[in-house]
């Protein structure tokens, strides 16, 4: 029996699929499928949105980076999702419970949940995101230590929970509690110019969307794929880390993770991606 063996460089095989160069800096017109499931990467913008169409950051990446996300086997972020699954079932704290003790199978109980976060939390009277919801559960129901920002199992567990909503469109209920006023505050923050470079979020992700900023192709700055696997760091990056990184890059001092400022920004920026599929864990540059 004769067998042929060819080492195929993934990149080389896919280069013929489409040419991306600095000249063609428009988002690509392609369909993202993950393990054969179609994702929504273009959606009609909600009323009051500065764009007509909201676009996933996937459309702005190179052929090779885009390809990584189409197969959950090649998506390096999936390793951390697996870690998150183990954490879901891990008993911690004085109550002797795991997430699964109350919520059972995440594939059922968490399906679609993260697509509607941040939500209004009537107890703390502020919006709550998945990270803080995990911490709340750990403290109140499990008797376990809350995770510090980006530490412990925070990123993998958040990614695992968000991954259960893969493909489902993002939508927020702004009528809950004071969500609307937090949205307003987030919008203000989005358009606030900061730092020595005097840039706002909108300077790059709205006014210059689609242009090249040196070697980087500016997207709409959507957060539907967070925590996202960034090739630059080689691990998962949380939304608040990304917010802080962006603000730092304007050469400004940056707010603390989960501060009022950044929670408001998360509400507003999530809303800007209304209708896009949850892509967690997305793969980006």
């Amino acid at each position, binding site marked *: 029996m*004769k*067998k042929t063996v060819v080492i195929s460089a993934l990149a080389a095989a896919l280069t013929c699929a489409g040419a991306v160069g600095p000249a063609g800096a428009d988002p690509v017109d392609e369909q993202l499928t993950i393990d054969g499931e179609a994702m929504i990467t273009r959606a009609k913008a909600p009323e009051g949105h500065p764009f007509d169409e909201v676009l996933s950051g996937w459309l702005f990446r190179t052929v090779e980076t885009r390809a990584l996300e189409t197969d959950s086997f090649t998506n390096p972020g999936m390793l951390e999702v697996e870690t998150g699954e183990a954490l879901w079932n891990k008993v911690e704290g004085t109550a002797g419970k795991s997430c699964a003790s109350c919520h059972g199978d995440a594939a059922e109980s968490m399906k679609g949940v993260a697509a509607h976060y941040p939500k209004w939390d009537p107890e703390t009277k502020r919006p709550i995101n998945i990270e803080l919801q995990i911490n709340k559960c750990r403290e109140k129901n499990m008797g376990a230590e809350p995770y510090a920002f980006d530490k412990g199992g925070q990123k993998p567990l958040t990614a695992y929970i968000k991954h259960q909503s893969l493909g489902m469109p993002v939508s927020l209920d702004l009528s809950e509690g004071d969500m609307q006023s937090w949205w307003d505050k987030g919008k203000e923050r989005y358009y606030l110019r900061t730092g020595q470079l005097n840039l706002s979020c909108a300077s790059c992700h709205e006014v210059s969307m689609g242009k090249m900023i040196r070697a980087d192709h500016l997207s709409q700055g959507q957060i539907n794929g967070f925590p996202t696997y960034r090739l630059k760091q080689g691990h998962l990056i949380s939304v608040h880390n990304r917010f802080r990184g962006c603000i730092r890059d304007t050469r400004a001092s940056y707010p603390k993770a989960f501060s009022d400022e950044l929670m408001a920004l998360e509400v507003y920026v999530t809303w800007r991606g209304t209708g896009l599929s949850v892509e967690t864990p997305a793969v980006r540059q």
Partner: protein
Amino acid sequence: MAAPKPRVKVPKTASAGDIITIKTLISHTMESGQRKDKDGKPIPRKIINKFTCEFNGQKVFECDLDPAISANPFFEFNAKVNESGAFKFTWVDDDGSVYSSESKIEVK
């Protein structure tokens, strides 16, 4: 770091003579041996140094890995299949551990 866990993706069925694509991934830190810990002491090298794939006992693919290979090494390669059988994958660790995985394929 959890124990290395191999993952493979092989089609379940194929036609005789088909060239199939095989993807493999193993979670492993691939500690290069060049780094130092907080106290300035070198962290000993611990990498996967060999990967092989056999089909029905016959070698299909083999390679040596060196310290520059990144964590969680991923391989993608093609193989021509003429008969049903099983692919056996093995990863050899510096500490002598051998991790393996097997995938069956039915050729129609």
